[in-house]
C-alpha cells in the first residue's frame, strides 16, 4: 500500500486500519465472524528481541507510529500475549527460550517473523549456531521481510494478520497442534540434549510423547 500514490504516510496506515475492518466473510457464522472481529481488534504483542529487529518495535509502539490505535499493545508476559514477534535471527540457545515462550501463550496465538533472517538465515545463512528457517521450529503466521523492515511494513504485516484473523482462517497454532511430532523432531535435531523437558509440551499430544 505504501508504493501507491493514493495515500501518504499516516493516511496509508489509517486506510489499512479501515480496510482490514470491513472485509467479506469466508462463509462463517455470525458468532465466528463476531469473535474473529473482536480478536483482530485486540492483539497483545510479546516482542522477542532476538536480533536487530527489536529496534523497530520501539517506534512502532511509541508516539511516531502508535500501534495502539490498531489495538496492538505490548504484553508483559507470554501468558497474556496473542502475537509473538520474532525480530531477527535466532541463535540455537535463544530458540529454546522462544519455544518455551510460544508454548506458554494461550490459544489462539500467532507468530510474526520479522526480517530476512527468519526466512532463510539472511546474512547469517552460513553461521554455525543460528537457525535458517524459523517455520521449521515454530509455526509462522506472517513474514515481514527486509533487512530491517521499517515500522510501516510491520504495520502492514500486522494489518494483514488482522485481516486473516478476521476471516477466521486456520492459523499457525492449529498447524502446531496437528503437526506437533514434526515440529518437535525438527527442534530436537538442532537442540539435541538441550530440548525443553517433556512435561512442558506433552499436553499437546495428550501426554504420549
Amino acid at each position, binding site marked *: 500500500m505504501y508504493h501507491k500514490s493514493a495515500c501518504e504516510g499516516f493516511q496509508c496506515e489509517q486506510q489499512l486500519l479501515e480496510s482490514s475492518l470491513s472485509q467479506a466473510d469466508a462463509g462463517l457464522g455470525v458468532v465466528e465472524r463476531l*469473535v474473529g472481529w*473482536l*480478536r483482530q*481488534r*485486540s492483539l*497483545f504483542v510479546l516482542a522477542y528481541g532476538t536480533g536487530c529487529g527489536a529496534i523497530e518495535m520501539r517506534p512502532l509502539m*511509541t*508516539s511516531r507510529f*502508535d500501534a*495502539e*490505535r490498531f*489495538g496492538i*499493545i*505490548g504484553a*508483559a*508476559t*507470554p*501468558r*497474556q*500475549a*496473542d502475537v509473538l514477534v520474532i525480530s531477527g535471527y535466532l541463535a540455537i540457545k535463544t530458540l529454546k527460550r522462544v519455544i518455551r515462550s510460544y508454548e506458554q*501463550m*494461550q*490459544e*489462539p496465538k500467532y507468530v510474526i517473523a520479522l526480517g530476512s533472517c527468519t526466512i532463510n538465515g539472511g546474512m547469517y545463512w552460513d553461521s554455525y549456531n543460528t537457525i535458517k528457517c524459523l517455520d521449521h521450529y515454530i509455526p509462522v503466521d506472517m513474514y515481514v521481510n527486509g533487512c530491517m523492515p521499517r515500522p510501516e511494513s510491520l504495520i502492514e504485516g500486522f494489518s494483514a494478520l488482522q485481516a486473516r484473523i478476521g476471516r477466521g482462517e486456520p492459523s499457525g497454532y492449529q498447524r502446531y497442534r496437528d503437526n506437533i511430532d514434526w515440529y518437535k523432531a525438527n527442534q530436537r535435531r538442532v537442540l539435541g540434549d538441550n530440548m525443553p523437558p517433556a512435561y512442558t509440551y506433552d*499436553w499437546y499430544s495428550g501426554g504420549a510423547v
Partner: protein
Amino acid sequence: MLHILLDSLAMIALCYVMGFLFRGFYRQFNARLQRRWGPSIWQNFYDNLKFLLKSETLIHGPMFFFGPIIIAAGAITTVLFIPFLKDSIWLQGVSAHGNLILIIYLLVVGPLGNALAVGSSGNPFGVMGVTRGLTRLMGLEVPFFLGLALVMLQHETASVQAIMAAQDSIAHWNLITNPLAFAVILLPFIASQNGSPFDVVGAPVEVYAGPRVEFGGRLLGVLMTQNMMMTVAKLVLMVDLFLGGASNIFELIAKAFALFLLTTAISATFPRLKTEQTVDFFWTVPLGVAVLGVILNVWLI
C-alpha cells in the same frame, strides 16, 4: 424479589459499560497527552471479550482458579451494596441492608483473593507484586478509612443513603462542607484505583504485570472485568459521599466522569513512586491531614 434481581443485573451491566468506556477514555486521554491517536474508546471492551474467548491451559491447583472468582465475587458484592441513585427505587441493589462499614470490609476482598491465587501460582514476580500490593494497601488504608470515618462522624451515621440524603444542595455537598475529608481521601482513592503515582504494584516493566503475571486467557478476562467494575463502584461511592449522589443516571455519569477526569489528570501528571515512598507518603501527608481533621471534628467543632 424480581425487582431486586433486575435491579442488581442493571447495576452490574451499568458498572461494566461505564467501566470499559471510562478505561477507554483513560487510554485515549493518555495517548493524546503523548501526542498519539490512541486506541478506540471501545478498546477495553474488545480486550476483555478477547481474553474471555481465549483458552486457559494453566494448572496451578484449585486456589489459582478460585482466586479470580473470589475477587470477582467481591467486586460484584461491593457494587450491589453501593446505592447508585438517591430518591429512587432503581439502581439500589441490596444497599438498604448494608452500610459504609460493610463496604469497607468488602473493598479488602479483592486484594485478599489476589494474594491467595498468586501465592498458589508460585511465580516470584507475582509474589513480588502481591507483596508490594499489600504493603501499599497498608499505607493507603489508614488515611482512606480515616477519611471515611470523618464523613461518618460529620453525619453521625454509617448509612450511605442517609449521607447522600443529607447533601440536598450543592452548598451541602461534603466536598464543600468537609473539604478536609475529601483532601484526605483523594490520594488513597487514586492508589486504590491503581492510578499512576501509586501504580508500582502492576508495573509492567518492573515486575511483569505484578500479581497478574501468571494469569492469561479467561482468568485474566475475569480479572479485567472485575477491575473495570470496581473502578466504577469506587467512583460511585465517592460521588455518593462527596458530590451529593445523583438523582438520575446522567447526573451519576457526569459526576463520576468529573471525578474520574480529576484523578486521571493527577495520574497523568505524576510519575510512579516506589513502594516505600508510597507508604511513607501516605503515612505522613494524608494521614497527618486526617489526624488534624479528626481533632478538628471531635474536639474543636
